């Protein structure tokens, strides 16, 4: 039990650190980023439980925003909604399909993360954004970034198999 909490705390801390490191990187579009922090949600999901993934997602966005000084700003709302929906979808897929691979989980997580952030922009600014264009680009970006994240998670899982 204690070990589970320690693992979770460590995952939250490193996910927040990753998110902070990622934040100043230049971006082509506002929702386009590597999404490395998502790797730790996925790891928590596979290693611990679906709830673990959601907990990592929620706490890491709070922690990172607190440290970046963007708590409760539009930026926070975007990353919070994105991370949460991605963790929820990955958890759902993991429970529903026994054969689902980490790659599929990670890519669909990245995709839903971007999509929900776009939806937040749409709702917050009540502006009609060209969805077709964004979906096309999102898929192109989500596939490599999700794939890389999945490879990282696989490697993490392999190295911590006995832990």
């Amino acid at each position, binding site marked *: 039990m204690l070990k589970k909490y320690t693992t979770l705390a460590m995952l939250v801390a490193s996910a927040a650190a990753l998110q902070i490191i990622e*934040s*100043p990187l*230049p*971006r*082509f*579009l*506002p929702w386009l980023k590597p999404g490395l922090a998502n790797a730790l949600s996925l790891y928590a999901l596979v290693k611990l439980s679906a709830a673990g993934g959601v907990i990592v997602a929620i706490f890491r966005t709070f922690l990172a925003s607190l440290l970046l*000084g*963007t708590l409760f*700003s*539009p*930026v926070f709302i*975007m990353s919070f909604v994105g991370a949460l929906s991605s963790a929820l979808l990955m958890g759902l897929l993991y429970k529903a399909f026994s*054969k*689902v*691979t980490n*790659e*599929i989980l990670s*890519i669909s997580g990245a*995709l839903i993360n971007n999509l929900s952030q776009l939806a937040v*922009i749409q709702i917050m*600014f*009540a*502006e*009609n*954004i*060209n*969805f*077709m*264009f964004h*979906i*096309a680009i999102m*898929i*192109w970006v*989500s*596939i490599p970034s999700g794939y890389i994240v999945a490879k990282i998670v696989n490697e993490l899982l392999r190295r911590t198999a006995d832990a």
Partner: protein
Amino acid sequence: MQKNNLIFIITLLTISAVAYYFHFKSQNSAQYEVRVLALNKTFFRPSSNRLVVKGYLGESVITWNNNDEVRIEKSPCPNQNCVRMGSCKNIPLICVPNGIIINPTVQNFDAVTGQ
């Protein structure tokens, strides 16, 4: 690569292609104005090619160059992502902290009066 992964990726790529096709089609059939949205007010490209709009945090400076590319030149936002995105054409530029959207495909006008 596993078979399931491959099927999944190909499905996504197909969806992407279809989405891009619709985007391409909508672009073809319409000429569009660049609109700038700040604090729920809409602005248009001025003839001076330089627009100063007020957002949540302060004033953002938006400029157009001779190739009709638009960029956010100055922004009061802390992360300056929007400024680093540089010049874009046909792609929305969004500055979330300051609440600025530069959207090229929202509404299609045939012409503008009162400029």
